[in-house]
């Protein structure tokens, strides 16, 4: 934990790398800077480039799981074994997690780090997705879990880096919700 705190400040890294100017580049570099090397995911179209770049980088062990709660189990086990992880998913995947959050991550005090691409708002075309989306923040709030909705690129590295460090040092889960305002979201093309 102390080592993570001693790492280069976000601003300096941002200036040094052009890849960090995209939201997905910021996620990748924030994971790396905080020694998070295990990244299971259930994909989303918005995550395509990030997932491709994680696979291309030998620092990361990244792979798909069949369900999001499986990925939560994997990173929880890894953390107890001394290796840090984070889970990537979309809104509907988060909606499957209430049981594992309430019975594993929270009571065992595991710093579960989740990146959730937000479907269901700001131009959603599938009514079911918009309803699923409305369950997400009430679940997070009901467990008093830390969460941030990330909308601006200029704030994003600060939020990522600080949230990861807070999760690890306070041994508490965090969810970073990646808004369409940040990622562009998914739109109805035809």
């Amino acid at each position, binding site marked *: 934990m102390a080592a993570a705190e001693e790492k280069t400040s976000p601003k300096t890294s941002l200036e040094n790398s052009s890849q960090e100017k995209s939201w997905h580049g910021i996620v990748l570099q924030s994971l790396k800077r905080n020694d998070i090397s*295990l990244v299971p995911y259930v994909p989303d179209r918005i995550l395509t480039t990030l997932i491709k770049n994680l696979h291309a980088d030998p620092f990361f*062990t990244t792979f798909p799981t069949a369900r999001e709660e499986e990925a939560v*189990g994997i990173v*929880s086990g890894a953390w*107890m*074994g001394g*290796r840090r992880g984070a889970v990537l998913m979309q809104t509907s995947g988060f909606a499957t997690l209430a049981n594992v959050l309430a019975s594993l991550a929270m009571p*065992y005090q595991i710093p579960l780090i989740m990146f959730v691409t937000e479907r269901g708002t700001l131009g959603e075309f599938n009514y079911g997705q918009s309803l699923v989306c409305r369950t997400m923040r009430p679940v997070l709030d009901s467990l008093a879990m830390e969460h941030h909705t990330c909308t601006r690129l200029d704030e994003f590295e600060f939020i990522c880096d600080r949230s990861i460090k807070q999760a690890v040092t306070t041994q508490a889960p965090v969810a970073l919700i990646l808004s369409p305002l940040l990622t562009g979201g998914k739109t109805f093309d035809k």
Partner: protein
Amino acid sequence: MNSTPARNTKVMNRFDLTSRLVARLKNEEAVVGGIGNTNFDLWAAGHRPQNFYMLGSMGLAFPIALGVALAQPERRIFALEGDGSLLMQLGALSTIATLAPKNLTMVVMDNGVYQITGAQPTPGAVVADIVAIAIASGLGNSAWAADEEDFERLIDQSMSTAGPTLIGVRIDDKPGVGTTRRDPVQIRERFMHGLGVREPL
């Protein structure tokens, strides 16, 4: 390994098998005990700092053990799971087969019932073969243990196999022998001490 017909295997006992497993552990191997009776019997077999007891999140014993295995590739990890729990998370078998950790041994305690909720039969009780499912999921080193001696042989064999192993055991419908002390933070912290991740305060 997959030639043993499931229904010709001896019906054994969870606590006895768990005790036999624990007795064979000489190198601080990690053991992840699934929800309910599976971890109750792990507790009753004698607490070890390298044991992790699940108090919820049914079906995640194998994913949690996979995470430990990926974090500590030099340590052998055992995971104990019930058949009802595994049926909730069959996709995990494919994930484990794809990642193929060399240090993971999975044991499925198959009694065909949700013993702890009143022994109602699982949906797979009559029709599903857990070992055949595991093999079809890509876990080639999967077998039913014919009896206690065969179980011990399969456990020993798994420790030198160059890939993940799954062992199916048919068990009776007896409840767990003990009850795990339900203190999740203490369970997690002791486990991390046992794995050498942290020093005791």
